[in-house]
């Protein structure tokens, strides 16, 4: 087992942790954190698995760079939305908002 594969497996673990957090946490910021963990896990799988046999591979590395930028864009936008939502409603979660629109 190469260290790359080990990191890929760590990525799998992060995916599991992130997914559990994403599903179970209500607080929007915490879900956002979980999303970022999940994303990191996916990136690790992508690079680790690809590099397991052939050594450093710039293609998945470039993909992960792209992925990171997309993730920060989404995260930053989410933070803006969350803060504004909190500002207007005083809520930090989407659960039981009771405005009748389920």
């Amino acid at each position, binding site marked *: 087992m190469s260290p790359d594969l080990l990191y*890929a497996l760590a990525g799998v673990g992060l995916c599991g942790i992130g997914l559990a957090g994403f599903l179970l946490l209500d607080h929007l910021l915490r879900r956002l954190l979980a999303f970022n963990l999940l994303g990191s896990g996916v990136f690790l799988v992508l690079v680790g698995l690809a590099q397991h046999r052939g050594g450093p591979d710039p293609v998945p590395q470039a*993909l992960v760079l792209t992925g990171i930028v*997309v993730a920060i864009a989404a995260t930053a*936008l989410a933070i803006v939305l969350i803060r504004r939502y909190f500002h207007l409603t005083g809520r930090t979660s989407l659960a039981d908002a009771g405005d009748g629109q389920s």
Partner: protein
Amino acid sequence: MAGLLFTPLAWAALSLLLDFRRGRWLSWLGMLIQVLVSLSLWFAVAGGGGFFYALAGWEAPLGIALRVDGLAVSFVLLTAAVATACGVHAGVYLDPGKSWQRYFWPLFWFLWAGLNGVWLGADLFNLYVGLELISLAAVGLVALGGEAAALRAALRYLFAALLGSLAYLLGVALLYGQFGTLSLTGIAGVVGATEPAAALALLLMLAGLALKTALFPLHGWLPPAHGIAKSPVSALLSGLVVKASFYIAARLWLELGDRLGSQLLAQGLGALGAAAVLWGSWRAFRQPYLKQVVAYSSVAQIGYLFLLFPLTYAVAEPVSRLAQQGITLQVISHALAKAAMFLAAGNLILSVRSKRVDALGGVSHFLPFSLFSFGLAGVSLMGMPPTGGFAAKWLLLQASLASGQWWWIAVLLLGGVLAAAYVFRIYRASFLEDSVSDDFYHPPKTLEAIPMILALLALGLGLVAEPVLSVLALPFEVAAGVTAVQP
């Protein structure tokens, strides 16, 4: 030629620098050009067959290639038609006085660019970026204006979309790790019959895409987002955006499903689709708000799409083709009809100044045109002849019969009846003349004309289904293998 399809990106960049009114003129010009370009590309492909287009001069797998075939260009054309309708409508409908409306146009164009990217995409990672582009633009459009309810819907939508994208990306990671390429055709060429890792990858990707397509029971985010957004935005989202993720799922399934799928997965997805049809229709019937009715109707109509999976798995080739044609028609007719319905609903809401269904009493008196458009679109959703919805339903019925999967027949027929139930509920409300008030606002003629045109297109699709399908089914093999760099 294919390069011109990226000009939406250029319109996006330019319109960001302008305010709403100037952006409107620019965008209307852009739409005209876009429609013309899409048309000419469509005719080019209809005449000369499909081809691969290698971007940046690097061919797959090193570079990214676009797959320009009959199906893709038809969807490009569909996008041009629906998005133009929504864009023209939005230009009149939205209130230019609000400073944030200026961001409508760039978001709109980015959305369009993302859609085109997905239709033409043949590279798994590129499809991921395209999906994210669409999702973020859509979220931005929903949130535009920043009311609390809109923000809430946008956040829900954003989280669902992000989770779906990551599930898809995880699948891509597994596939790349195993096969060392991102090109879908490349993977389809080397994948074997028993590959548990690849099968899990396909499952993950389908699950993520199903979440983004709002397949029951993952549909919770759709009705608030589509119900709360401004009507032209809702029309875009329901008509086109959810189709993008489904399109990728379908392409994956048709390329890899025969080896990586299983009967259980196929029937399971079909069953979820069936549940979506029934549950979505029922919920639509119960909604007190007009746009919520239309939004839940989308959940139901999306359900039909997932019948693709059981009807193409382990069936004879002609049956599979029938199913594919039926689903394609369903995508197109739903895009046209649902866009028409949302735009017409917007007009009705504007006219009675209330979002409630029971406020529509007497509207048939004063706004027959918009109501008629709504009705015509509803006819297509019900799957009544001669609309495109009927043509789709007919083909799916035939595919179900021919494959011996008779249980889907019940879904198709019952779904039509349920759709009639929620559509006729709206008619009923609008025909009631008990409490006729004269206090109706008359929207401009443009607003009334656009949904009518879309609804008529959905209607006419059924009559010309055969020629349309013949272009969709263009033998891609003509140019496949020869990665022709486009002339």
